């Protein structure tokens, strides 16, 4: 076991220069972020906020321009330990089609352990575990193109799980899925965190996905603007709107009601909390 912070980002800056115009674009500025083992962190930000870049910096696909990123205590700038970093920090991307390598589900899940030189018997155990964890075990002999988007994305998650990583980073895993696929993935991810104790970093621009997290980190314009519990973050509707983000529908409703002078709590996160608040208001009004 390494350090308590599985991901440690210190004074990170990241910029890239366009080779044609020679202009330098700053993507991330002065980022400090620690993620503890077992935590479920959601990173929120709209398009172009730099949140995907942040994800890629966590497993050394990109390296910082200045500052440093430590994955389980290993500096991601250390090229000799690239595979140690990548096997500890698993990454799931947006498009499930473009991350499945082979023509049979179980062969694809076996891809990472095969690359790592794990003995065949152990690969079999890991593949079965990973597929059962994401609920795709009965599809192990299927061909990926016969699966739905949500199922394919679950296979992609299993493919990363089979590496036995310390943390899974999901870079907008639901962006290309339909609502039922999105629900599948978010349920899988939060179950992974709750039941398997997996550290999860979920990068998204869907507010209602961030609600399930322990902590929400809001990125705007390459900087961290908020880092708190979902309840705290979403109660500040004005602030979120200013940086171009929405709030969950239930929160928005409560917010609008309170703006109209109703005495309602504005830190509700989901439909149930919102309805019970409105019920409370209505019984009060009747009295």
């Amino acid at each position: 076991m390494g350090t308590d912070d599985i991901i440690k980002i210190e004074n990170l800056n990241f910029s890239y220069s366009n080779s044609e115009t020679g202009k330098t674009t700053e993507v991330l500025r002065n980022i400090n972020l620690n993620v503890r083992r077992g935590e479920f962190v959601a990173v929120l930000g709209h398009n172009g906020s730099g949140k995907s870049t942040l994800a890629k910096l966590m497993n050394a696909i990109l390296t910082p321009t200045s500052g440093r990123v430590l994955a389980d205590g290993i500096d991601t700038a250390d090229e000799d330990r690239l595979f140690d970093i990548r096997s500890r920090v698993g990454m799931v991307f947006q498009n499930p089609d473009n991350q499945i390598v082979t023509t049979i589900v179980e062969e694809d899940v076996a891809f990472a352990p095969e690359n790592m030189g794990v003995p065949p018997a152990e690969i079999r155990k890991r593949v079965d575990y990973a597929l059962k964890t994401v609920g795709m075990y009965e599809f192990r002999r299927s061909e990926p193109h016969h699966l739905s988007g949500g199922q394919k994305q679950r296979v992609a998650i299993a493919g990363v799980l089979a590496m036995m990583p310390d943390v899974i980073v999901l870079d907008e895993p639901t962006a290309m899925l339909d609502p039922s696929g999105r629900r599948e993935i978010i349920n899988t991810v939060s179950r992974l965190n709750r039941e398997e104790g997996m550290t999860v970093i979920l990068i998204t621009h869907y507010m209602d996905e961030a609600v399930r997290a322990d902590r929400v980190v809001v990125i705007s314009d390459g900087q961290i603007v908020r880092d708190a519990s979902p309840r705290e973050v979403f109660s500040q509707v004005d602030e979120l709107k200013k940086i171009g983000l929405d709030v969950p529908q239930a929160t928005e409703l409560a917010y609008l009601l309170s703006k109209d002078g109703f005495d309602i709590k504005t830190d509700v996160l989901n439909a149930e909390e919102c309805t019970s608040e409105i019920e409370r208001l209505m019984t009060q009004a009747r009295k």
Partner: protein
Amino acid sequence: MITDITIGQFFPAESVIHRLDPRTKILLVLVYVVVVFFVKSFVGYMVLALFVISCCAMARVPVRFILRGLKPIMFFILITALFNLFLTSGGVIIFHWWIFTITDEGLRFAVFMVLRLLFLIMGTSLLTLTTSPILLTDGMERLLSPFGKIGVPAHEISMMMTIALRFIPTLLEETDKIIKAQSARGADFDSGNLVRRAKAMVPILIPLFISSFRRADELATAMECRCYRGGKNRTRLNKLEYGRRDAFAWLIFAVFTAAVFATNFLFAF
């Protein structure tokens, strides 16, 4: 049209032939191709037919299924037959009209050529019909790996084939989507002469190419994230292992080959 082609298609079933090691099957097919070219008599072709049909029976692949796959290439077989029929000189002339001459040698050649092509295709498609693509590429990788020393990138070739197979359905789906999108914008793919139709393909191919490159880029990143570093130190989930049945297959094949060569000496017809 695309669904008509059975060559290269996998026919999933439980059979002895399906369970043979892919390496055995690949090598046997290679030798089979050579043997087919050595058949010199009709009796030899009968032995060949018997062999292929009993292989189909053992593999539980209906012969009908293979024959249906021959349809798209029937045209080429016919052309080859006609060329042989009319352009072979020598032998006794059995038919002559204007510039067309058929000799008994020509007739014999034409019939042999058709039979040869038919049996070649039937035999080789039996390989792909009974071997899943993943086992096929695995087998190729293992067979080619001894040539790694002289610079044959066995692992890379098989990885490329795997990825190609994996992306065929994805890209077909995408092509379909692009065709619909372009049709919705008023593109016309079905009228005009050949040049016009070929030109109409450009607005399909360009988006398809661009998206393929993007996919390749994303896939490469995803593979790197899963610790891919080429074939070095790589282990496999399912290891290929030769069994008793592989030795048995070679034995049967040896008998068959001997029978074919025997017919060459015993029968002139």
